[in-house]
């Protein structure tokens, strides 16, 4: 039954007629204004943009999953490859997707150059399965495999990450989603999982510096920085869930344009319907998850981004003298005498200087080309593309604005 559910989940859009599984309908009331829920399958599979879902194998009624902790190379965006640590060749590790009530056996193999362990963040489990090295189990030494076995007694957006040399291992990208669907899912049409992370990667290098606590220079959705982040494509009217997880050392206020959402869950599970309210921005504190849901009723290209403006920039320095409003007068010409390639910078703002040249393996501070010019963003930024009449979730291109719905230049 459980196996069948999983198989069906992949074809949920086609499985609407399966009466067998339709008998279970969502009981939670949707936010105001949302269309009736469609119960087409047990759950809508989670999409991890720029990531993947870990397949499981059913063995004697237990779902078996295998994670290998190992060094990985991650392209944050074209032109920048970072030497990270992760799981199964990626950071964040593959998304684990399970159902409440599942019995699971999780194998963790250590191919790192140092010892590790695996903590199941937020999971209600026996103490000995909690994965805190030294406290409840020995460290997993390089080359060793440990197995964790537990029954999921809850649902929600949980996480997995090491609990051994955490500072280094988290800073290098070892993290992943552990998503547990309820037995009776609250149906959505699109279910996205985005892991928030921040990194200190000195320009010109490829190794994140785990010793940095505050001065990060790279901010990512699923270890990708704009313009390397996948866009989120949804059909008009889709009920969309976005799951956000944060193991970084900052909070990240994630903001959506053109829509309002309700925060429906945390890493402790669903928020009671009576406690939900509409918002445009949800602050995701360190060490927690937030789910929000919205009805994509407003066609267009809508940014979804962290609202800390430095978090939507790529590599930049924070100790450059502020030149805004500085009148250089003859200084520029004098400097150009000794430095012919010198361009005065920042005197009238910093837009429009996105790609003058930079160290290798470093992203421009602001990037992205839109249909009307430079998007001037970076880091934690992506686009929710809401379209009418699409038949696939492939990238539909830029939004075509109906006449009279777009700002235009006028002679004032």
């Amino acid at each position, binding site marked *: 039954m459980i196996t069948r559910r999983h198989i069906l989940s992949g074809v949920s859009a086609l499985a609407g007629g399966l009466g067998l599984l339709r008998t279970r309908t969502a009981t939670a009331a949707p936010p105001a204004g949302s269309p009736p829920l469609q119960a087409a399958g047990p759950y809508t599979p989670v999409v991890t943009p720029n990531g993947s879902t870990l397949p499981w194998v059913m063995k004697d009624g237990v779902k078996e999953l295998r994670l290998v902790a190992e060094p990985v190379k991650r392209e944050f965006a074209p032109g920048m490859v970072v030497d990270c640590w992760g799981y199964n060749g990626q950071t964040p590790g593959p998304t684990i997707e399970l159902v409440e009530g599942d019995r699971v056996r999780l194998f963790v193999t250590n191919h790192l150059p140092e010892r590790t362990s695996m903590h199941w963040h937020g999971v209600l489990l026996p103490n000995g399965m909690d994965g805190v090295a030294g406290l409840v189990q020995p460290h997993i030494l390089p080359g060793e495999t440990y197995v964790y076995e537990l029954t999921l007694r809850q649902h929600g957006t949980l996480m997995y990450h090491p609990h051994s040399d955490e500072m280094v291992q988290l800073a290098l990208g070892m993290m992943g989603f552990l998503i547990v669907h309820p037995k009776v899912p609250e149906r959505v049409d699109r279910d996205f999982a985005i892991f928030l992370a921040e990194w200190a990667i000195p320009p010109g290098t490829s190794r994140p510096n785990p010793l940095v606590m505050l001065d990060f220079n790279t901010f990512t959705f699923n270890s990708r920085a704009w313009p390397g982040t996948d866009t989120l494509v949804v059909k008009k009217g889709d009920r969309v869930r976005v799951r956000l997880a944060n193991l970084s050392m900052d909070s990240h206020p994630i903001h959506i344009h053109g829509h309002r959402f309700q925060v429906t869950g945390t890493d402790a599970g669903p928020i009671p319907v009576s406690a939900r309210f509409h918002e445009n921005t949800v602050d995701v504190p360190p060490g927690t998850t937030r789910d929000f849901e919205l009805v994509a009723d407003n066609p267009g290209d809508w940014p979804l981004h962290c609202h800390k403006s430095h978090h939507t920039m790529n590599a930049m320095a924070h100790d*450059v003298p502020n030149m805004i409003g500085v009148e250089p007068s003859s200084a520029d010409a004098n400097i150009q005498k*000794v430095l012919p390639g010198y361009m005065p910078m920042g005197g009238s703002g910093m837009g429009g200087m996105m790609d003058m*040249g930079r160290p290798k393996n470093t992203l421009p501070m602001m990037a992205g080309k839109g249909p009307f010019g430079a998007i001037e963003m970076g880091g934690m930024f992506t686009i929710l593309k809401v379209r009418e009449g699409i038949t696939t979730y492939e990238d539909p291109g830029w939004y075509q604005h109906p006449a009279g719905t777009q700002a235009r230049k006028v002679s004032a």
Partner: protein
Amino acid sequence: VDKLPELPDDEVDLEHLESLAVRRRLDLEAAHEQAMAVFHALAMAKSYRWLGATPVAAVYDHAPEGFTVAGPGVGVELPLFDQKQAVIARLEGQLRAALARETALAVDIRSEVRSARSRVLAARAVVDRYARVVVPLRQRVVALTQERYDAMLLGTYQLLQAKQSEVTAYREFIEALRDYWIARADLERAAGGTVPAAAPRPPAPSPAPGASP
């Protein structure tokens, strides 16, 4: 015009320089001539050791008898007791001293040449290091700093500092080149004249813009 010549391709062979110096140094030649003068004086003293003084005189006398005597006179000294042993010994001593001085001067000259050449080689190594390593590295630092400035990772002041360091390195290169030619002048003085130089190399490194030597 008002520019130091570049380094010559090669330095002169040490063997050649020492013999050249010994051949050409006038102080060594003077010492040699002094020794030769003593040598000749000694030879003469030895040759005439059996000859005493032979005084030659013109005699003119009024005898009481009323006549005048006038004529030449010659005396012959017989060196029975003084055979110039003291003179010869003194001259022999002086000759040994003169020869020793000449040898010492020659040794000093060779030593001077060697140390002057070592200083030239050391100065050359410094110039070479600046030309091949320090100045190019500083130029590279400026290029990389400019790249970082362009990506807004650095400010104008840091860029100017990098340029200043490059200009300083180039000035130090010129000073090293100057020190080389001073050391070379010292070598020529030690070698007693012009030391033939090979054709100069093509100029290196190129001066930084705005940092005319």
